[in-house]
């Protein structure tokens, strides 16, 4: 289904959704930084900037409580979180690189153990993608086979038009249902031209070749030259739309506390630190190798997908300028 929505009606749509109690999550300025956050009013949406963090946290929050406990005398009371109480959500203004990561996450959260925290939010969320019209030299979605108009992962996809408004195209029942729920705000598509798409500068990687090299080079001096300078923070993983490692900790006192799940990162020294004191990834290059391996080999081995959508966030935000696009490009040029 293809429709047109004017800028004015788009604002009205968001306000209407908010009013009816739907959680509307969109890029929004938060203490100086644009993040995907629930809106209190449509006017808060910032459409022209790539949010600093990805859209994954609409389903896979930075930190969430999964259980609480309380001891009284010899009794221990455990209280679970009921995912059924998660709110209906519209995630809107999602960049193609963020939206394309959602099916990637679907795979890992449902292949063996069904993660109800993720899946319930996923069921209750309608994803509205937004075509990208600007790119910088960190953007490389096209290099990993995604385009600035990629609709993968979106239930509804918006393309900004010359002269304002959006062309809307639905790709699922959820997308269609969203249009139908406020059909008065949508019109039939006009002949207006879409704004020109962003043009990332990176050439398409030969991901097969990259994987072929990775298959053979778990041990390779290249890892040292790539990542000796890595300082071991979690910035790359935390801003990544596809990274999905998490840690579970109990916080509180012996008497009372909560079990929480929060993002983890393979760059951390603690990530593979065993209780024995041994750490199989004892040096930073080994940890960074895992990041590349996971994205371009292990995930492919398991799910036939690449765990990178080319958003470029890790490149922009790496404290020491590690450039995953440059690394993959370099690997793709190596003899297999």
């Amino acid at each position, binding site marked *: 289904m293809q429709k047109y929505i004017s800028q004015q009606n788009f604002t009205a749509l968001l306000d209407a959704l908010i009013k009816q*109690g739907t*959680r509307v*999550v969109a890029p929004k300025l*938060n203490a100086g930084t644009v*993040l*995907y*956050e*629930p809106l209190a009013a449509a006017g808060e949406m910032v459409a022209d900037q790539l949010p600093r*963090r990805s859209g994954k*946290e*609409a389903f896979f*929050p*930075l*930190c*969430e*409580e999964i259980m*609480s406990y309380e001891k009284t005398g010899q009794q221990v009371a455990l*209280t679970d*979180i009921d995912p059924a*109480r998660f*709110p209906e959500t519209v995630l809107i203004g999602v960049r193609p690189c963020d939206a394309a990561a959602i099916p990637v996450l679907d795979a890992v959260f449902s292949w063996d153990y069904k993660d109800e925290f993720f899946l319930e939010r996923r069921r209750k969320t309608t994803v509205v993608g937004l075509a990208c019209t600007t790119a910088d030299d960190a953007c490389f979605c096209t290099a990993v086979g995604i385009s600035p108009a990629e609709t993968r992962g979106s239930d509804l996809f918006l393309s900004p038009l010359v002269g304002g408004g959006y062309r809307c195209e639905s790709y699922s029942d959820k997308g269609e249902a969203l249009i139908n729920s406020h059909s008065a705000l949508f019109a039939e598509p006009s002949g207006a031209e879409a704004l020109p798409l962003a043009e990332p500068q990176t050439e398409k990687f030969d991901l097969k070749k990259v994987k072929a090299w990775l298959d053979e080079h778990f041990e390779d001096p290249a890892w040292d030259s790539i990542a000796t300078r890595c300082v071991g923070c979690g910035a790359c993983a935390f801003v990544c739309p596809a990274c999905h490692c998490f840690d579970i900790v109990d916080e509180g006192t012996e008497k009372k506390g909560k079990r929480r799940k929060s993002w983890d990162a393979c760059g951390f020294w603690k990530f593979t630190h065993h209780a024995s004191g041994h750490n199989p990834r004892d040096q930073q290059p080994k940890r960074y190798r895992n990041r590349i391996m996971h994205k371009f080999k292990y995930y492919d081995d398991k799910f036939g997908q690449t765990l990178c959508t080319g958003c470029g966030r890790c490149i922009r935000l790496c404290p020491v300028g590690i450039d995953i696009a440059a690394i993959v490009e370099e690997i793709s040029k190596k003899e297999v």
Partner: protein
Amino acid sequence: MHPEKTSHTFEPKVIAFVCTWCTYAGADLAGTSRMQYPSNVRVLKFPCTGRIDPVFILKAFQQGADGVLVSGCHPGDCHYIAGNFHARRRFAVFRKLLEFVGVDLNRLQFSWVSAAEGGKWVEVVTDLTERVRAMGPMTEFKELALEEQWSGVIDTPELKEAFSQI
């Protein structure tokens, strides 16, 4: 006859970190002398104020303290030569940090109470308790403790409802 006990609607939690040689002994003296003071204070004994890590003060506020007292030997009286001098510097700086992040320093009291100053102990504890009582509960850290990070935002109606259910 004892004077009529005033009843208060708010009973603050006051935590005192004290050294064993001076202030703890001073508090013992207050007891031996049967002096009276509000029952709000809970005393944690350390060998020396030099042992008191600023993190403990932070932890106390996080655990719901409305006021924190740190007390040790007068300068020059330290049983361990200089522990209180090190503590004095440490806390001179730490209180400035807490102030800068927005903690009202009226909730954080430092004092020197010697083993002979039972009366001063009573005065310091009473003053702090009454001052904090007048200020009302320390809500800042308690509110933080209740907040969950959930998609970056914490004050949506749904979440508020979720909290009230939890």
